[in-house]
């Protein structure tokens, strides 16, 4: 019975969350938008003032800009492909009857709980270090020349690290979804003579589609703003080879103090995130309403 009283009570209880989130979203964003049309440099305040779209023009004409957009999308798409495909395969494997399934799950999920700077530092120094890393040890064992990951393939190295962090997440969610698949349906399909492959395509995959959509949506949110992994490994380099859009904005704002340009970059990042989010949310909305 929703009386007038309970309805206004409900609104009252919702208010703090809604107001807080609204303020937290609008105020800084308005600032960023404002700064993006200003010349503003805390180190050189004499030339401050309104400059129209020139910050956008400057940011756009910066050769690092297109590279950073490309790097951002490369990171998102590569990690998504690796984690979703890898996650499905791993989930199928772990779902098999085996000894010690609980421990396997714990081992596989662990990287997700490792904070990004630790993950990046461990990979940088323990695994991929060209002299003391495990990869270098393996290369030397086979008589090959160790690879200088962060010097020669910086973006690939970062993708590997980020994929390592997110593969557990995808696996865990897809596994949970897989385990909720009706056993009787599976048996019926088997009795009808469906092989493993056709069972997977016509039964398992459609069942997991919702989980896959959720994995893609959530990972996209986080992958668009990969930051700590770049900060502690390559610092965006060499050159701009591993600079993504968030990192470029950070460099402009806090290292070069070009606040106007950084804000223009920030606005572009928001637009990019919204385009991606629009498609992701629509896909999820469709899938979740079922």
């Amino acid at each position: 019975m929703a009386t007038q009283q309970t309805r206004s009570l409900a609104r009252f209880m919702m208010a703090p969350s809604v107001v807080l989130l609204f303020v937290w979203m609008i105020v800084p964003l308005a600032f960023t938008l404002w700064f993006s049309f200003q010349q503003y440099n805390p180190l050189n305040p004499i030339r401050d003032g309104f400059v129209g779209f020139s910050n956008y023009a400057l940011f756009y004409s910066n050769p690092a800009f297109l590279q950073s957009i490309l790097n951002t999308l490369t990171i998102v798409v590569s990690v998504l492909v690796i984690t979703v495909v890898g996650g499905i395969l791993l989930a199928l494997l772990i779902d098999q009857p085996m000894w010690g399934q609980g421990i396997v799950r714990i081992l596989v999920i662990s990287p997700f709980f490792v904070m990004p700077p630790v993950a990046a530092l461990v990979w940088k120094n323990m695994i991929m270090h060209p002299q003391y890393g495990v990869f270098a040890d393996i290369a030397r064992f086979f008589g090959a020349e160790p690879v200088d990951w962060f010097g020669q393939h910086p973006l690939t190295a970062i993708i590997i690290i980020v994929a390592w962090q997110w593969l557990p997440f995808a696996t865990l969610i897809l596994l949970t979804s897989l385990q909720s698949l009706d056993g009787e349906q599976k048996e019926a399909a088997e009795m009808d003579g469906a092989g493993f492959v056709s069972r997977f395509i016509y039964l398992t995959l459609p069942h997991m589609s919702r989980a896959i959509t959720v994995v893609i949506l959530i990972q996209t949110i986080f992958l668009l703003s990969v930051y700590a992994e770049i900060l502690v490994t390559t610092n965006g380099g060499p050159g701009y080879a591993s600079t993504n859009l968030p990192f470029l904005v950070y460099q402009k704002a806090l290292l070069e103090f070009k606040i106007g340009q950084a804000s223009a970059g920030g606005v572009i990042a928001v637009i990019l995130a919204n385009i991606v989010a629009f498609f992701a949310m629509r896909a999820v909305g469709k899938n979740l309403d079922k």
Partner: protein
Amino acid sequence: MARAVTTQHKTIATAAAWIVALLIFFPILYTIITSFKSEQEAIQGFNLIPSGTFESYSEVQAQSGYFKFFFNSVLLSVGSTILALLVAIPAAWSMAFSPSKRTKDILMWMLSTKMMPAVAVLFPIYLIFRDTGLLDSRIGLMIMLMLINLPIVVWMLYTYFREIPGEILEAARMDGASLWNEIIYVLTPMAVPGIASTMLLNIILAWNEAFWTIRLTTTNAAPLTAFISSFSSPQGLFWAKLSAASTLAIAPILIMGWFSQKQLVRGLTFGAVK
């Protein structure tokens, strides 16, 4: 024909799964192993058996004062989680029990605030924090982490609360329970498991947040994420020390995470996958 699982099948699956699992876990395992080596041992090539020395641990504590950062991490993650729960519980409660036409839109909007890239607002936030004296303060960072995780907390609580049958509340109301009694005696006991899992997941997320915690702190409020980032420029022989510091930074949350796998799936997928 029953789906008889042959021992052979099971053996192969077990072997394959264990190999893959150990490969994925290997970077963590190797870090833990290396943390018990001396610096000399750590760079002498691949070796899975450490000498078992604790010298790296004591050096990390002596040099950079691990416990101060650890204390900040605990305070920030637990504090921000409690703040978020205080704000989110009433909201989720009202969305679950007196939903309106706009409830779904509000929830979607809340989620969309998570899509805003943090860097886009880095400088404004930095200015606001500087001018209000919140830079490098624990309370400022606590509020920040609370705001970041608030959408997830509301969503998660909402999915748990929605499963509490409304009839029970109505029955309590019929029996003459006041709203207050209804909340304390009927709702709370049923909501506790959901609140607890929300709390657990949120502590993990806050503990590992590595953008604002690094950018808005210098020394005073710096948590473990900032502590570990100070190792990003190599300092001579530091492999064993880095390993010890890393192990210390991830151990508490790793253990917590192992216990919360199930809730994790539910929480991070906003109830869409259970």
